[in-house]
């Protein structure tokens, strides 16, 4: 009901504008939604050239590719709301993926890293990866909050530390850096198995994990005082401090939560890719940050929506899949991806420039 009332007032406002203002209104909305328009055009173009782009199996593929990246993106989004960033995300994904794999290798696998370890219960492994991610996030948050270091520097450092630990971890027990594979069937079924099918196309379970993560994060961002505090700190830390928000605690919590989210992506990736090594997770933070920016989480701080982040992840994946369906040359793919990120940021910043 409220939504309809809103629409009505917006329409009334629009009616009240004179013809010149009406043109500006349209121009503005066109520009502000340009990203979505371009994507719609791209989807239509791809579908015309290759009708298979809009088949059920292709759409499910886009959804599942996006799902794996949603936890890391919504995690990193929080740090961007605080005008920060997190470069350690990819390496945390790598570390947690390797930890998940090492704890859940099949007992029959010949080159198991911990030969005498039984297959651990999955809930315990989830708790462990959440904890490992959260600890890294806690360290990030602590240094950002208490030493007023820029997150870029802090996470640049922790990223190296995590990578070092990861390298040592996969050298353990004579594993010598070999990929951690041979995952237990129960683990694979839990993550990549399915309980729902559309037609003959199964929807992998990790899509539901992503849905749970989205709902949880939406709730945290919009319905908790922690979420409100986060936006307050992001838009103006001094003002937030004066109004009684514990800035340090909020900063630490945001980073810790983000770390736990990377743990979830690591857990999913571990089973989804099936081969975990030192390079796992490399550059994941780049795509996640790009997704946030495309989705309107601004580096200016204090703005952003979970729905935007999810859209951003989808946009990036749609581009990846569409370029493949169109068989576009690899070199061009880099250029196109770069242009889209640049364009999205420019549109985003334009809003603030106009306001000034």
């Amino acid at each position, binding site marked *: 009901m409220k939504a309809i009332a809103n629409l009505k007032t917006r329409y009334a406002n629009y009616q009240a504008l004179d013809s010149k203002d009406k043109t500006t209104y349209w121009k503005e909305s066109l520009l502000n939604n340009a990203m979505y328009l371009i994507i719609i055009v791209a989807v239509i173009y791809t579908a015309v050239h290759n009708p*298979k782009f809009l088949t059920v199996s292709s759409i499910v593929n886009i959804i599942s590719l996006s799902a794996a990246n949603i936890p890391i993106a919504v995690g990193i989004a929080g740090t961007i709301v605080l005008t920060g960033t997190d470069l350690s995300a990819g390496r945390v994904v790598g570390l947690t993926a390797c930890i998940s794999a090492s704890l859940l290798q099949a007992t029959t696998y010949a080159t198991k890293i911990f030969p005498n370890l039984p297959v651990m219960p999955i809930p315990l492994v989830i708790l462990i990866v959440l904890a490992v991610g959260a600890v890294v996030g806690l360290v990030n948050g602590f240094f950002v909050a208490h030493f007023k270091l820029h997150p870029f520097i802090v996470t640049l450092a922790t990223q190296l530390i995590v990578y070092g630990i990861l390298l040592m971890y996969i050298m353990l027990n004579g594993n010598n850096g*070999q990929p951690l594979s041979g995952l237990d069937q129960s683990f694979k079924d839990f993550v*990549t198995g399915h309980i729902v099918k559309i037609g003959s196309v199964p929807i992998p379970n990790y899509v539901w994990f992503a849905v749970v993560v989205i709902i949880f994060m939406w709730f945290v961002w919009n319905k908790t005082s922690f979420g409100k505090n986060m936006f307050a700190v992001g838009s103006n830390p001094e003002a937030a401090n004066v109004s009684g928000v514990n800035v340090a605690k909020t900063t630490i919590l945001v980073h810790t939560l983000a770390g736990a989210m990377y743990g979830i992506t690591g857990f999913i990736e571990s089973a989804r*890719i099936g081969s975990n090594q030192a390079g796992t997770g490399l550059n994941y933070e780049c795509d996640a940050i790009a997704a946030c920016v495309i989705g309107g989480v601004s580096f200016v701080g204090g703005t952003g929506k979970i729905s935007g982040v999810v859209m951003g992840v989808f946009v990036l994946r749609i581009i990846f899949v569409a370029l493949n369906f169109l068989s576009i*040359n*690899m*070199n061009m793919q880099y250029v196109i991806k770069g242009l889209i990120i640049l364009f999205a940021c420019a549109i985003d910043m334009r809003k603030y420039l106009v306001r000034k």
Partner: protein
Amino acid sequence: MKKRLMAMLLCVAMTAAMVVGCGGSGGSSDSGDGDAKEESSEGGAASDLNVGVFYYTYSDTYIASVRTALDGKLEEKGITYQDYDANNNQTTQNEQIDTAIQTGANLLIVNIVTSGSVDASTQIIDKAKAADIPVIFFNRAVEDDDTEGQVLGSYEKCAFVGTDAPEAGHMQGAMIGDYLVENYDKVDLNKDGKISYAMFMGQLGNAEAIYRTQYAVEDANAKLKENEKPELVFFDESNTDKYQVDQDGAWSAAAANNYMTTNLSQYNEGNNNMIELIICNNDGMAEGAIAALNDKGYNLGEGKTIPVFGVDATDAAKQLIGDGKMVGTIKQDADGMADCIAALTQNAADGKGLMDGTDSYNKSDKVANKIYIPYGTYTGEE
């Protein structure tokens, strides 16, 4: 004030915990970047050799196995050495070499970052010349075919231990060709008389990746032609590259997996255009592709299996081959390479010429100080 003190203390405690944590987990593994190991072995003949070993990156699976093997052999010989990780950055490696020479290294063992570049390797040769110490390059090429001898011929105290980059591609191609000739009708799922393949490339602009991508298909086609079978066709007719490459250049399983799931949403048996053969530049990518096939019910060890080929013979790939989920891979002999490097190092320790007693190794026709460790095919039987 009190609060700040608390923060300070907590910070120190955390850092300490981290350092201790690292030490704990690293204790049983190998030396990390920069911690030297000295073996006061009773062999004693260790001389005053101080070796710097420079790896292009610790994250490479194959290089990690060379490192473990070489560390063991140098320790056995009681030679002082120090490992460095260039983390895929030539500048870092050059700086590490400078530093090592300053700290008294008198033998360099270099796994160069920029593969096949005369400029990069000449710089390292110049550093070694200036300090008058021998240098052993290994694994990654220091010059390409056209410039063969330019670098290795320019300094008598240098040697190269590696593989002949195109050889892996040729062997993979021959292996695929042989397999297809034998199983042509089984592989040709839609019975259109042609085999459609997917190719996953590890990195753009890397000599090894380029050779593997090219020769795996060319040589397989040659075998097919010999047996009067039609040549392979890339599954996606409109893709003129005829490969799909890891955009991060990391030869990663994740990249192959993302491509493969995307391919399978469009090319499958339902549409009668299933991909019938998968060729990968390395075993990691093969694993990623197999994970994607698994999700669709293929390559589970029984039932429908799409032949997948890789390179490296990692433990994981061997296991997959044993389980019937993968067909074959090309083995790089990490132990053999480490053995050869250790032998050359021993020569340096004994004050002999680097290439003494290396007649039993395969060498390049053109350059005498270039040793090739042969690749081998691996299809299950060792």
